[in-house]
Each structure stands twice: as C-alpha cells, then as structure tokens.
C-alpha cells in the first residue's frame, strides 16, 4: 500500500514509516508567529522557565495583525515581542510594514518543500501550497516548540481533492476554494490534510495555489497540501524534497470548467452561492487584501476591472497589498495609480480590517464584500455587520457598482 505525501513527509522526518492515525512527536523544521500570538508565547516560555530557545534560526516573526499599532496596549505588546526577538537573537524578525506572515515567510524563502512547519496562526495551512506540511497551533504549543524543537501530531488522513478542467475567464482559485468549502462543509475535513491536485491546480500560479491552501482550515483541516513543482521552487528561490501522494482513501473529483464566480454569504464560510444569486446586494465597503487574496496577481486582476472606472459613491474600497514586495511591484507596474484614480484607499501593508480591529472596521449593520477568508458574526466589526467573501474580480466589480456584481461583465 502506498502513502500520502503528508504521511511521507512525516515518515521521512522520523526515519520510520508512519500512517494516518499514528500519534508521533516530530522535529519541527520551522516555526513562526506574529504580533498577535507572540505575547502569549513569551508568557508561556517564561512560565516554563526557558531562558534560551532551542534554535533561533528555525524561528520567524512577522508583525502583521496591528500595523501600525492602534492603541498604547497594542504598541506595548509589540515592544515586548521586539525585545524577545533581540534577546533570543532571532534574525528572521520582520517588524511593521513587511507584510502578512503567511506571505512573508515563503517570499523570504525561509521554508522549502518537504519541511514540517508550524505557525501560531490558524492560516499557517497556507504554506502547504509549497509541498510541505504546515499547520496552525496556539501559543502554548508554539512555546513548547521554541523550547524543545518538537511537537506532537496525529498523522492526518488525506482528503484528496482532484480538480480537472480549466477555470474560465473571470473565475479564480478563490471561487474554486469557496465551492470546495460548500461541498466539504465547515467541519468536513477536521483533523485531515486536504490535498488539492488535478489539472486545474497544476496549471495555477503559485499565488492562486496559496489561496486554496489558505482556506483549508475553513473546513477544519490540519493543513492544505499541494505538490511542489518548478513554480514552487521559483517562488521560494530554493529547492527542497518533492513528495507525491500515491495512495488515497478518500477523494473528491471536480470538474472546474463550468464553475461560476462564487460568494460566501454572511455567517458561515460554507454558505456559498453563485454570484448570480446574490447580485444586487448593496455594500458599504469592499476590501481587497489579506493572506487569502492580497498578492500581486490579485491586485492585477482587480485593477484590470477597475482601470478607468470609479468606485461607487455609496461604497468605499480598501486595498491592502499582502507584503511590501507586493506593494513595490504593484506601484512600479502602475496598479496603485489605477486604484487611487478609481477612488480606492490604500492601507498599510498587513492584515488590515480582516480581523475587525482597525483600518477599515465595519459599523452597525454595515455590509462588506471582502477577499478575505472569514465571515463569522462580527468578524470585521460590529456584531450587526456582515461580510460576503468573494474573489478579487468580484470585489472590484462590486466596488464599481456599490452592490455585489458579476465580474464577467467587465471582462468582455
């Protein structure tokens, strides 16, 4: 019997064959966290009495959640993490303005295919798009990893999602992943690895693949996984070991060719409808950014639609590049000018309003269409506000019309 890629990665690391369901203690190759989870990690390390962490070279820190800090307390907590980074001689430390951790860590080439990675953020599954095992954990688990270089895991089963065919014009990997969430449900992949494969995934850019793996956790999964190839190596600027699945016990086959733009309606990420069913829903805000869809390609696709157009007067459009290098490229290529001329606001590089804390939070009863990944009650602001999740193309078209709109009309 063969194994899944994730089983092989863990087996290789341990030097013995493991399979789904085994509880193992594994060495962690790389661990990272941000300004949001950092303070509790440091508290846990102090409580443990750890003076020196196991290996500063395997640790990355990126400030992205409150950038720049919106309160004295947020600033105080960041200062605490900054001090820790200095004391522990953590060189892979990125202060305010570098970008969102899930974007910066691979951009810098800190990780490579075949590695075992843990991040103190639920969307650490994003990095599975690089052919590695990456999962999110809480602060205490991270403290344990920083102290010992290890963590315990239950080797996950893999739900293999095979996507055949080709996405049509105006339809992106975001629409595909929303459709997959609709099918699998918010807990359909709990404890599992979700592997995305097939022609449609192979032909996707590395950025589009990251959007897919990013939302694996929205189905309860431990990680998203996509087999590495030349595109992966090019993005990372480094090589690694490529692992392939040659056995699966559960698979889902999709043909993506007839897929339409999708929207996840408020309250649950699995509450997914075709854009035609929600078209016309008025919006107060449109948000283009986050670790799901704040990359250059996302800004590029949105700019194609917004070029020479204006954001509707009843709507505000907030655009936030996912990293500094994304921002620089978007600026150089003229995308930032297109957004500004259309009437958009460009936010500070980071998570922005995604988690409802600052830089574009929603007021009472306000409605936002967003390229991010969660639409829980109150996620982006007031309890009575609501969030529709969609692709960059749909968000751009909706910003122009002031209501949810089908982007394909702008692409003829």
């Amino acid at each position, binding site marked *: 019997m063969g194994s899944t890629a994730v089983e092989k990665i863990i087996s290789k690391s341990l030097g013995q064959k493991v399979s789904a369901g085994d509880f193992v203690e594994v060495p962690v190759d790389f661990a990272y966290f941000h300004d949001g989870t950092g303070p509790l990690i440091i508290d846990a390390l102090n409580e443990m009495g750890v003076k020196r962490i196991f290996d500063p070279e395997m640790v990355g820190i990126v400030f992205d959640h409150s950038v720049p800090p919106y309160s004295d307390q947020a600033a105080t907590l960041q200062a605490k993490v900054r001090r820790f980074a200095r004391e522990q001689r953590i060189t892979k430390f990125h202060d305010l303005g570098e970008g969102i951790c899930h974007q910066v860590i691979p951009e810098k080439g800190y990780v490579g295919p075949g590695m075992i990675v843990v991040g103190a953020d639920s969307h650490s599954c994003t990095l599975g798009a690089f052919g590695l095992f990456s999962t999110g954990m809480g602060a*205490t688990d991270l403290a344990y990893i920083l102290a010992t270089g290890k963590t315990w895991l239950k080797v996950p089963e893999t739900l293999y999602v095979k996507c055949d065919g080709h996405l049509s014009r105006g339809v992106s990997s975001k629409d595909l992943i929303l459709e997959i969430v609709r099918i699998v449900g918010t807990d359909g992949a709990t404890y599992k690895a979700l592997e995305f494969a097939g022609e449609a995934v192979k032909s996707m850019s590395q950025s589009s693949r990251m959007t897919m793996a990013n939302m694996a956790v929205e189905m309860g999964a431990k990680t998203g996984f996509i087999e590495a190839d030349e595109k992966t190596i090019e993005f990372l600027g480094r090589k690694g070991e490529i692992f392939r699945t040659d056995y699966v016990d559960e698979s889902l086959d999709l043909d993506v060719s007839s897929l339409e733009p999708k929207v996840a309606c408020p309250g649950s990420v699995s509450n997914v409808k075709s854009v035609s069913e929600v078209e016309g829903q008025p919006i107060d805000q449109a948000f283009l950014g986050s670790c799901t869809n704040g990359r250059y390609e996302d800004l590029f696709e949105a700019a194609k639609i917004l070029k020479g157009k204006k954001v509707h007067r009843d709507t505000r459009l907030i655009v936030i590049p996912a990293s500094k290098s994304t921002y620089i490229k978007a600026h150089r290529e003229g995308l930032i000018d297109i957004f500004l001329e259309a009437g958009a606001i460009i936010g500070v590089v980071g998570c922005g309003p995604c988690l409802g804390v600052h830089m574009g939070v929603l007021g009472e009863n306000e409605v936002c269409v967003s390229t991010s990944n969660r639409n829980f009650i109150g996620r982006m602001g007031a309890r009575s506000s609501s969030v529709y999740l969609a692709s960059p193309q749909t968000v751009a078209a909706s910003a122009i019309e002031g209501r949810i709109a089908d982007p394909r009309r702008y692409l003829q």
Partner: protein
Amino acid sequence: MIKGKVWKFGDDIDTDVIIPAKYLRSVDKSIWPKHVLEGLDPSFSSKVRPGDIIVAGKNFGCGSSREQAVLAIKWAGISAVVAESFARIFFRNGINNGLPLIECHGISGAVDEGDVIEIDLDKGEVYTKRGTLKTSPLPVFLQEILKSGGLVEYYKKKVSHDLERNQDR
C-alpha cells in the same frame, strides 16, 4: 468527577464569537473572561458561575488559533466543555491549558440548558438526565498533559527534567 450546570450552544461556535479580536491586544488579561461568548450573548459573562459546563454541537472553537478563546472560557470559571466535536486548534489549546474538553456524540440531544450533568474523565462517561453517554477517550499522553494542569506544567515536570539530565551526561 466534574459536576455542573449546563449552558447550551449550537454548531460551529467560532473563536470570533467566543472572544472578539478587539479585546485581544490587552495587557490586562483579566478582561478576557468578562467578554466570553459576547459575540452570541453579551450578558453571558454576568450569568455564568464557577463550575458551570458548556455543552455545544459540532466544530466548537473553529476559526482562529487565539488561545484567549480557551482562557476566556477557563477564567470565566467553566469547568469543562462537552461538544459533539471540536475544531482541532481549539482542542489542542484546551488540553494545553488544562481545560477539560470532552468529545461526546449525542450530547446535544441529551441535555437542556440548566440541567446538571456529571462527567467522569477517567471512565470517559457523561451522566445526563436522559442516561449515560460514552465519550471518545483521550490518548494517554494527552491525559498526562491535562492531569499536569496543561503543557507548561507538563514541560516543567517532565521535559525540562529530561533535558537537564541529558545535558549532565
């Protein structure tokens, strides 16, 4: 044995409703239990009493990795959470902080809000007015972490000791 009064919730209770992100960047940790489950019921923290038990449906604790979600529940005095199923990061965070989380199929249909239930962690049983339910037992080493009071205590008792021993050699 854990015994307490039940507060009942539905499926997919996410970490944003357990503790909204706007309270996370606080130097004063005591504010978290004051806002526990505020996203669903703003008066919850004033009604809950030490020893009470949360009963919920499937996928409890889905969403972000914020450990404050577990701490808010624990520090509000909740003695255990019994759910049809848990989201995995929340589950780890609960065990790591010594908060008993019990996965128990059929619990939603077996209790009503305000009931008093009893939980026997060793036997893996939950006693309700509609009968006894079996729970999925924790693997032994997770039970050890939980019994130590969490991962920090576990580390202090076991791991740091081993590390020192190795260094002595």
